[in-house]
């Protein structure tokens, strides 16, 4: 199609509007209307492109993205947090991809530093959003396997009965039944919370079914298991900088904040066990002192990190 530069400009603008208007959050209808009014061709081109977009429905559902690891990026200066909005741009820095010499060559690691977030897409329609200070092991040959070595990931798995997705967490195994779930592995425990669908915990032994809204905590020693209920829509809220607690000890809150904010957050021993209920929204990880009143404590900088202590 031969097109002069004016036509090309209209096509480009129309496509930009297709993308913007398609967004579920779109609200700027006045600006869109103004653009349509400039020239009758605008509406014509927009209509054509928007319908072509609609027609993509025929082919897209069958699309499964190939495995993806983003190239390594330079870490930004740690405390160069700009205001929120652009702030999160700084979160995606320094992804480390390391080959493990001791393991099978098809295995490789994706790791994030504290304060970083990484999206990993696997074949078969699985996406993993990796929180900070986390390490995920993947298999080039088997896109239905992953191992969470440490940290936290929000897994969205498209179910395939013939090839269930299995996540290894230490000695434990989680197998999906078509689901979105969040897994945390720390030095002392493993936690899994299910947002949608379900997973089976250790199908070979315990065969414990975790459905939507179930949370399971297993101590690293393997001796203590605790189950509870969570609001499914709050699972994985950390990706929006939101943390929901229903009586968890402050030590656990500090651990979550450390992973997310990219700086170590400690609690004084006398407060570590104090239960916390509520929702924390971290808009700006460089201003954690604002959380003090929420904890009924003092949050202050200490070295590179933060300390939560009694007022």
């Amino acid at each position, binding site marked *: 199609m031969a097109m002069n530069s004016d036509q090309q400009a209209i096509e480009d603008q129309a496509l930009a509007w297709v993308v913007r208007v398609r967004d579920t*959050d779109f609200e700027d*209808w006045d600006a869109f209307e103004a653009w*349509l009014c400039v020239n009758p061709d605008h509406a014509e081109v927009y209509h054509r492109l928007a319908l072509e977009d609609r027609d993509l429905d*025929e082919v897209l559902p069958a699309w499964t*993205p190939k495995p993806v690891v983003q190239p390594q990026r330079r870490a930004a200066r740690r405390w160069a947090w700009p205001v929120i909005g652009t702030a999160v*741009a700084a979160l995606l820095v320094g992804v480390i991809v390391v080959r493990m010499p001791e393991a099978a060559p098809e295995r490789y690691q994706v790791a994030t530093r504290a304060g970083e*977030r990484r999206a990993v897409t696997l074949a078969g329609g699985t*996406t993993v959003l990796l929180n900070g200070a986390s390490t995920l092991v993947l298999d080039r040959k088997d896109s239905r396997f992953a191992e969470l070595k440490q940290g936290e990931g929000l897994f969205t798995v498209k179910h395939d009965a013939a090839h269930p997705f299995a996540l290894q967490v230490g000695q434990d195994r989680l197998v999906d039944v078509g689901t979105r779930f969040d897994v945390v592995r720390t030095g002392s425990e493993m936690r899994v919370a299910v947002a949608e669908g379900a997973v089976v915990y250790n199908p070979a032994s315990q065969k414990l079914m975790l459905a939507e809204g179930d949370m399971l905590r297993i101590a690293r020693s393997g001796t203590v298991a605790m189950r509870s209920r*969570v609001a499914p829509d709050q699972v994985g809220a950390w990706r929006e900088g939101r943390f929901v607690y*229903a009586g968890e000890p402050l030590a656990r809150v500090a651990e979550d904040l450390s992973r997310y904010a990219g700086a170590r957050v400690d609690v004084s021993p006398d407060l570590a066990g104090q239960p916390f209920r509520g929702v924390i929204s971290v808009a700006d990880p460089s201003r954690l002192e604002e959380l003090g009143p929420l904890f009924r404590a003092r949050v202050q900088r200490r070295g590179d990190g933060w300390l939560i202590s009694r007022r």
Partner: protein
Amino acid sequence: MREGWPPGTKPLDGTHVTSSPRPTVSRMSDTGLQAVFFANRDRLLRFLAAHGAGDAAEDLLQELWIKVSTSASGPVAQPLSYLYRAANNLMLDRYRSIRQAAKRDADWSGIETDGSDRAQDPIGERPLIAREQLRIVQEELDRMGDRVAFAFRRHRIDGVPQKLIARELGVSLSTVETDLRKAYQALLEVRRRLDEA
């Protein structure tokens, strides 16, 4: 027990210890939507006109109200945006049916469209060689690069707001918009090529 569970799976029947606060959704009754519709009648009419509704604008506004009042079920969080979106979809449907009618007329009068005009037709009117199309589209998506493909997938298949995708990827909203434009450009180009072939 749901289908698909491995045999011997036990349901987790733990004590329901806690439940975190849920965000509240304001409930918008039909009469509420109606109030918003009539309060913004002129704006919606202007919007339809901007879409090229011409003399039919009043009729289309009527049609919009019938569509909206019969299909809106449950709470509508952003009623005005909801109405604008419905108006937008109405105009797209109208554009398509006008094109199709024009094409039928052309076919009836024995005028065949030649290859150069085909690119102008809304895609989907001709039978598609679905499998082949899928393969080519898939290749194109794989070629787009990881971030673009991820953003496109989250937007177009998972229906995630672009602001959230920006957060997930740690980039700005305008970067996500640019990525999505790139993805669309590549895909639409591929489909046009296939259509001309």
